[in-house]
């Protein structure tokens, strides 16, 4: 195999110069801090007193025995699964619906995309009003004669409420990606399937889905990562409650570091969160050959 190292005087160095700022940024702001986080996770560190003591794997042993951590893992995985499924299903459905030439279609696409560019704080606060016991959603339900729950205080509805808030915030981005993917599916293939007697559902399942599978893979990975890193809606809407039902890992990490002042223990949570995200991403990546069209 030939070496790809850039040759002095060639265009390779120009390429290196272009990517260098990005690579340097990733190293300084990503890799180096993460190395520090790993180091901190082996220490008991209280920054306000300046005390740092090496304690080996004690923070990790403590995590294993901490029931709040177990609850936090469950909350994170349930939240992530909910967001992943709901987001992709709605995004693909919207993309299919909006993938047609008709008057005003751009307006509909803009409406569904607009939450992506709204501040997450403003979005969460607005949903807080909607989900309040006497808020807009229960008001609408009352017109139908339904006594709505206290969405954010009821353990059976708090997590799903957060999932909905998160999904509608980000579904527009995935919708746009799926729209682009759908528009790259050759019309001739669909027409050929139609001539062979395939109905719309069969055509979608056997032609469209395999052709947009790379986009499903991409959006699946990005949505999984984003959902496991959720923080602001939890902070603003539920505070991790009721109980620990919405105490997802990033929120648990934040409270441990900045409220309990246990930076070492919080760093261990951060390392585990990284490992979970990495594992789920690798799982999706390594299984892509089985279900993604054209993957080798």
């Amino acid at each position, binding site marked *: 195999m030939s*070496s790809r190292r850039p040759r002095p005087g060639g265009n390779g160095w120009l390429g290196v110069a272009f990517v260098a700022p990005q690579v340097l940024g990733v*190293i*300084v702001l990503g*890799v*180096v801090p993460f*190395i*520090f986080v790993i180091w901190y996770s082996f220490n008991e560190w*209280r*920054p*306000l*007193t*300046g005390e740092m003591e090496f304690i080996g794997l004690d923070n990790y042993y403590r995590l294993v025995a901490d029931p*709040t951590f177990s609850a936090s893992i469950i909350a994170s995985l349930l939240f992530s699964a909910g967001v992943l499924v709901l987001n992709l299903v709605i995004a693909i459905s919207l993309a299919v619906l909006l993938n047609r030439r008709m008057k005003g279609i751009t307006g509909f696409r803009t409406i569904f995309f607009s939450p992506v560019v709204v501040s997450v704080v403003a979005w969460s606060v607005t949903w*807080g009003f909607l*989900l*309040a*016991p*006497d*808020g807009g959603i229960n008001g609408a339900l009352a017109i139908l004669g339904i006594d709505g729950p*206290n*969405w*954010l*205080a*009821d353990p059976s509805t*708090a997590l799903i409420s957060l999932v909905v808030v998160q999904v509608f915030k980000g579904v527009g981005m995935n919708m746009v990606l799926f729209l682009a993917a759908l528009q790259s599916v050759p019309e001739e293939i669909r027409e050929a399937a139609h001539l062979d007697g395939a109905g719309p559902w069969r055509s979608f399942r056997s032609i469209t889905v395999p052709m947009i599978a790379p986009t499903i893979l991409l959006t699946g990975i990005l949505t999984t990562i984003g959902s496991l890193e959720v923080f602001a809606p939890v*902070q*603003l*809407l*539920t*505070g*991790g*409650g*009721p*109980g*620990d039902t919405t*105490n997802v890992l990033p929120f648990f990490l*934040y*409270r441990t*570091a*900045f*409220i*309990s*002042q*246990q*930076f070492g223990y919080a760093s261990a949570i951060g390392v585990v969160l990284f490992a979970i995200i990495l594992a789920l991403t690798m799982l999706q990546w390594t299984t892509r050959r089985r279900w993604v069209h054209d993957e080798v």
Partner: protein
Amino acid sequence: MSPKEYFMRATRSRGAAIALTGVLAVSLSACGGGGDSSASGPVDLKMALWSSNEDHLALLQEIGDAYTAEHGDEVASITFEPVTNPDYIAGLTTQIAGGDVPDLAWIPEASGPEFVDAGILHDVRDTLEGVDGYDLDDILPAALEPWQDDDGGVYAYPFSNSPFALYVNQDLLAAAGQPDVTTLVGTPEYTWATITDVAAATNGATGAAGLNVPTFTTTNWSAVTMLGNAWGAAPWSEDGATCEFASPEMVDYLTWYQDQIARGAIPAVSGNAAPAAFASGDVAFSVAQLSQSGSLDDSFEWSFLPLPAGPDGYHPIVGQAGVSVLERSEHQEQAAGFLAYLTNPANAELLSQFFPPPRASLLNVETLSQAAPKLTPEEIQTAIIDVVPEAQVKPQHPVLSQFTDKVRAGLDPVWAGGDVETAVTGICEQISPTLEG
């Protein structure tokens, strides 16, 4: 692999390692801070603040400039830096973790005992006592108590000693056809039971919120549990070693609180959202501190009353903020000198135009009228001067931060109407090992 290829790979790896080491070294030196380590000459002091109010900053800077003019050989400059993070302690912690340690800091009462216990704050008793005319004994003992240790050390000056009171929207009560509760103050009828009766009736008649605590969120649960003292309820024993959440008094109080939610006297808790502000005009009664009065205007008629009595009588409460010298400051001596100046009787009077003072000599209508110009002299007398000397600071605990989230999770079912005894028993099971230390 040929020797040449091996060499190429090795040098590439080594180059990467050297580059990474260089980046680490730069980062470490950056993390290490680099405060002024000079041993002689005047120093630059820095104070971290929760408030970013321009008037507060201007007054502090004026006092700071006066100090540097008098003590230029010790202190060259004093800067006052608001910590803009929404969670002040989180912001301060991040700043300090990054190596930027202020010399003095505004410390909220919730962190007071914990910071004293953890050795984060510097003992300034000797400095304060050594200043002529400082008169440490003028500071109300109950106000100073959370900032002292068992050896008599003093770790902060509680510059804001603000009583909790009951704000009443008179217009809403009138619209609901309810009686004027201000006439009940000082009589046996002035109780939580009476107030919540009026609150429920006002809610029923107008749809407005009855009674709320604007600072209450599920993560700030102590804003509500503190009111249990009128039932004789406390979250833990005086020495902090025993959980008291499951005491009959606390069960009674929380059950009463649930009942008030159920009948509409108190709004239902919705996630971690804070209740409506009294200033919105859509709340009949609100439990808040004196400083809230600054945000009120003449858009509706309101009154400022002492907290009502409960089954265990009347128990006034104050919330505090202190100013401290940090143990990690490189200029403790100079910072303590400025703290003594900032909080001497003359400057304490200046500060009292914004913050209710902890000094007995300043507890008079004339001084307090500056901090709360919208209150009547009668309101200042009955809801502040008469109550502050006896008031207890909100219950705090030296390791509160380690178990506050367990209490939050345990109390969530209570706010949602769940079984109180089961909830509070669970809380004590969860936090007792931490309390027992």
